């Protein structure tokens, strides 16, 4: 390049590293760290979520390289470990630690957040015609309760194999309708596997504190959706508590974490 481009007043356009330079991609989400794009990888019919960690110009280049590399590797290792242990997560299809990208299997489906939001909306409608269609409501509710149980089991499995998510919200759990062979095209739209995504802050640990904070963050995410979601989360916890050895200790620790609100009181 002969002349450097003029600095942008607003958000800069990131130039993706090869092999993703050929077509312009639109950003799906921008977190503090990574940009997520949808594209294809290996074959034109393999959709992937491309997670790109652009260089941070405020950081010293040596430090920036070191951090990007370490974090990308950590994320990939956690995902591979989950896969090996049979926890449903997106598979790693490719990556380049030097250039800061990771190509992850594309997950179809809706996030638990979306499912909950729809339930909240539907709940408002059903409140009026409750007498006549009581059975139908209950059926829908039962599906939802079942979904909660699967969320509880999925989180428990994750913790059981020694992984803590670090940023477990209702947007980090996805219901995938396709991967469940039992699912029918109509009616049972909440069937399907729970696939946990977004492991950017995950750590490999069996510490009860980290596990409890995971649950606490998820609880806050439920509470933020709707006050009525509270009993639903209790079901998540109940199933979690039955799912693996050591879960009871985590639930006990969760009570402490709740009291101090994730943060402990500052000393001095």
């Amino acid at each position, binding site marked *: 390049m002969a002349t450097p481009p003029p*600095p942008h*007043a*607003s*958000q*800069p356009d990131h130039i993706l590293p090869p092999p993703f330079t050929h077509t312009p991609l639109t950003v799906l989400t*921008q*977190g*503090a*760290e990574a940009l997520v794009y949808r594209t294809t990888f290996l074959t034109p019919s393999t959709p992937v979520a491309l997670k790109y960690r652009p260089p*941070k*110009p*405020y*950081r*010293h280049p*040596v*430090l920036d390289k*070191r*951090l990007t590399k370490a974090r990308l590797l950590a994320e990939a290792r956690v995902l591979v470990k989950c896969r090996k242990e049979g926890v449903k997560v997106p598979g790693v299809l490719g990556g380049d630690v030097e250039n800061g990208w990771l190509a992850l299997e594309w997950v179809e489906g809706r996030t638990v957040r979306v499912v909950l939001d729809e339930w909240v909306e539907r709940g408002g409608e059903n409140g009026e015609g409750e007498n006549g269609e009581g059975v139908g409501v209950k059926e829908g509710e039962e599906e939802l309760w079942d979904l909660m149980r699967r969320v509880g089991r999925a989180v428990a499995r994750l913790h059981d194999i020694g992984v803590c998510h*670090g*940023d477990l919200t209702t947007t980090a759990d996805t219901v995938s309708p396709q991967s469940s062979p039992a699912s029918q095209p109509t009616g049972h739209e909440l069937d399907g596997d729970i696939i946990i995504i977004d492991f950017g*802050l995950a750590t490999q640990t069996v510490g009860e504190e980290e596990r409890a904070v995971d649950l606490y963050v998820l609880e806050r995410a439920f509470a933020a959706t709707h006050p009525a979601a509270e009993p639903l989360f209790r079901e998540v916890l109940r199933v979690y508590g039955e799912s693996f050895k050591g879960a009871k200790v985590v639930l006990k620790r969760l009570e402490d974490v709740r009291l101090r609100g994730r*943060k402990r*009181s*500052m*000393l*001095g």
Partner: protein
Amino acid sequence: MIALGLEGSANKIGIGLISHPSTPSKPPIILANLRHTYVSPPGEGFLPKDTALHHRAWVVRLIKQAVRQAGVRVEDIDVICYTKGPGMGAPLQSVALAARTLALLWGKPMVGVNHCVGHIEMGRSITRALNPVVLYVSGGNTQVIAYSSQRYRIFGETLDIAIGNCIDRFARTLLIPNDPFPGYNVEQLAKHGRNLVDLPYTVKGMDASFSGILAAADVLAAGIGEDLDEGKRLRTEEGDLVTREDLCFSLQETVFAMLVEITERAMAHVGSTQVLVVGGVGSNERLQQMMGIMARDRGGSVFATDERFCIDNGIMIAHAGLLEYETGVVTKFEDTSCTQRFRTDEVYVGWRE
């Protein structure tokens, strides 16, 4: 309305006089802003007992001088504001005692102010930043704060020691002078640093930890003494000798990158593009520069104040106290105590929308 503010939570005693015009749209007028710092010898920190002694020796002189400089009569002062906490016990007590004495002597109401809220309100007032994410970085505090429904909520903070404490203690190891303050001298040395030495980088979500860095920097510092054998001295991968300047540079680059990262995460979380840096470490130009680059990439900007307002001062206590006083809040005389533990989110912020 006019307020007198007394600050003494750490090694500075600050006396400030501020006037809020009767029309709220007009900016406050700073009538006096005096400060005296207790400077300990190189290699030593400030001990609570000696610091309290310093504050007691200076408080009367500074108040007299501030009132004279402001050109106000005692009758004109509406309220006396003092730092209730957080901070070091002994210095806080000596200044609270001075405030109580004045209040009884002059027959004035009192308002106890949270030190952190004082920093935030002063920063907002000076920079006119409307609703920024606040990074509060000083010798005793490291917090990422955002305002929501009548509270300054803490999104991220240090898990162990404060950033300023980390820098100060590092300076102590290298026997860097404490005058005017250790962070300033580290900043000047860092400007001549060339090599980045590896230090631990510990960020957990929106929280950060600094104690491991301090321990690692102390170990490295033991390897650069000029009295050591040439062969035993610490070298970079290229074979250059690692200097004091390099260590200061590496420390700054590492800890500031951590601060910018947790701030950026909080900004992404609350959807804000403005960031305000307050507290003593906020006067560091490299930190301001890094924060500016990050904010620009997010389509926003950084707000910072100079050392008069970001280093502990009395005017910020007067300002925040007066804001609270104007909403009708007065601290009852029997409650005019002080406390070392006083979290930012404990304060009900009645003066904001």
